[in-house]
């Protein structure tokens, strides 16, 4: 029986195993080498794989991500770390105009096998520029894939899947989960775009991803105490998201709540709700509801941040509302 790992160690393990399996895999990012990364997700990798493949970069997000694209076009499989997802704004040209489009605009001549790992999410009182959940931006860009592992097992498996995928993948890790403990299975299937039924239920479906999975689990426990059996779909992949799994759950429960930590307006939930409305309309016995963050920047103060983050209370209320 393997010893439980922390989420952040599962990330490091996945990076290590991927580098051991494929000499083209390299790491780039601010303080990822000697310092082991600000969250220690790359600890030990410099010693294991050397300074050429584990590169500390200057604080130059735009060019380091652009360089990863160039390296990917020249035979490498770079895994870039952006220290906080908020900083990805500086690298948007590289991600959106270069990485996402190279395959398409060059007529399929190449793929861009790179990964951009970055932590999102609140819970650490890191304030408005260190806590945002911006994954919907990337899910909106054709050519990118987006994944958000919620469990320790997925932190390993989905990062391996992302590194093995031929196209650019944005791997979003919720920093509040880094200390989470769990087991990994290095041989688990590593499919792109497959959701996971976290809990089966018949009365309503909660579609979620990332750290909100834990709020959904707490909500489902409380609902179960009242005789309401909620099914939880952990999306895992946001682009492509598992329509088949979501529609199958809707066909079973006829009620859906989509919960995520990102701002609700124009978020991932909006796309899923719209697709359910168009493609699973006749299965619905209640309006599709969303639970997300309010339309304001995330605030610093403990009380403000706590009020901001979607929690079990709001998910319980939403599920009940679909059952009204």
């Amino acid at each position, binding site marked *: 029986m393997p010893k439980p790992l922390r989420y952040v160690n599962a990330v490091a393990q996945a990076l290590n195993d991927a580098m051991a399996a494929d000499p083209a895999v390299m790491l780039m990012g601010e303080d990822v080498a000697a310092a082991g990364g600000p969250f220690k997700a790359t600890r030990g990798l410099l010693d294991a794989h050397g300074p050429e493949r584990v590169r500390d970069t200057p604080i130059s997000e735009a060019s380091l991500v652009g360089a990863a694209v160039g390296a990917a076009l020249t*035979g490498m499989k*770079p895994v870039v770390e952006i220290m906080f997802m908020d900083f990805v704004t500086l690298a948007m040209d590289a991600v959106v105009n270069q990485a996402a489009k190279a395959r*398409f605009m*060059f007529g399929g001549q190449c793929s861009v096998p790179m990964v951009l790992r970055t932590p999102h999410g609140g819970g650490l009182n890191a304030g408005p520029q260190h806590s945002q959940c911006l994954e919907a931006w990337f899910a909106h860009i054709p*050519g990118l894939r987006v994944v958000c592992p919620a469990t320790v097992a997925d932190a390993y498996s989905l990062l391996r899947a992302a590194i093995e995928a031929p196209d650019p993948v944005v791997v979003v890790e919720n920093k509040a989960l880094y200390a989470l403990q769990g087991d990994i299975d290095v041989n688990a299937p590593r499919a792109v775009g497959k959701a996971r039924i976290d809990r089966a239920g018949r009365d309503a479906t909660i579609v979620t991803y990332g750290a909100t999975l834990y709020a959904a689990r707490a909500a489902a426990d409380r609902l179960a105490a009242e005789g309401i059996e909620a099914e939880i779909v952990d999306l895992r992949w946001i682009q492509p998201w598992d329509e088949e799994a979501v529609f199958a759950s809707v066909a079973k429960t006829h009620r859906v709540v989509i919960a995520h930590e990102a701002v609700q307006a124009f978020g991932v939930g909006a796309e899923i709700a719209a697709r359910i409305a168009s493609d699973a309309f006749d299965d619905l016995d209640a309006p599709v509801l969303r639970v997300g963050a309010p339309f304001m920047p995330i605030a610093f103060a403990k009380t403000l941040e706590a009020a901001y983050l979607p929690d079990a209370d709001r998910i319980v209320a939403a599920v009940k509302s679909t059952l009204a």
Partner: protein
Amino acid sequence: MPSSAAQADPIPANPIPTDRRLALHRTMQTIRATETTLSRLFADGEIPGFIHLSVGQEAVAAGVVGALGPRDSFATTHRGHGHVLARGVKLDLFFKEIMGRAGGICGGRGGSMHVADLSLGVLGANGIVGAGLPLATGSALAHQTRRTGGVAVAFFGDGAMAEGALHECLNMAALWKLPMVFVCENNGWSEFSPTSTQFAATLDKLGAAFGVPHRKVDGNDVAAVAEAAAEVVEAARNGGGPRILECLTTRWHGHFEGDPQRYRNADEIAGLPRNDPLRRSAEALLAAGVEESALAALVDAVDAEIRDALEAARADALPDVDAAFRDVYTPTATLTAGA
């Protein structure tokens, strides 16, 4: 503003053999004739979208790309036809791409601003000013890490000197001693504005700040460019770290085709042919004993190639929408890994 040979560093007396000069001349003639044809096709409405021509800058493309070996790679700019043609992209695939045909080098997905040929190490023209700099930096990083022996070149215009990417990439390339050459095609114009009104520093000082050696040449003298390029490329290849090659050149056409260039002085435009890189090259070849008839035959041969390529492009099918969808992602059959 427009540069002159007088500002360039002195050229070492290292004459290039005549047959090599003739090859460079043919490359320049191919670029010139191709772009002149594109200009006419654009005016006739046969080319959709934007095209940015490098007429007047051919010596930089021929000289620098001519100095590269087969393992080398480069990223270029929106004004990148010359570099791509100098690298030997097939003319018919080039014309088909720019005319939006199915058989284009990029299947008609990219057009003029995104011509690429990964099989030749061409990481693409780019629609974003300065965006090729990080791509070339990363490519150099890959050459270094994979020990390919290759060098990566970043072509950029003087307008891109004001982009943060240049500063970031000079820093990274210097820190890591990357096998990389930063080639600035300095035509004096940042799109529609004189670069003197856009950039407060100079490239040599910028290089010095990062410890990156800088060399400036008359970019309309193809022999000078070729010699300088050979020197900096080999220095970078041999572990000397990055180099900057600043080529002073001239942009004859507008920022894009159809730009009336009202912001330019008529005398400046009228004087451009006096510094025509092709004419200077031809004069040098004649002085070296090449027959005038040989040069005329070269022009005819290039024209015939272009005629054939254009004919093939016009006859080619338009791209298929379903096929375009297939290029958004790599086909997914291989996406499930693990047990």
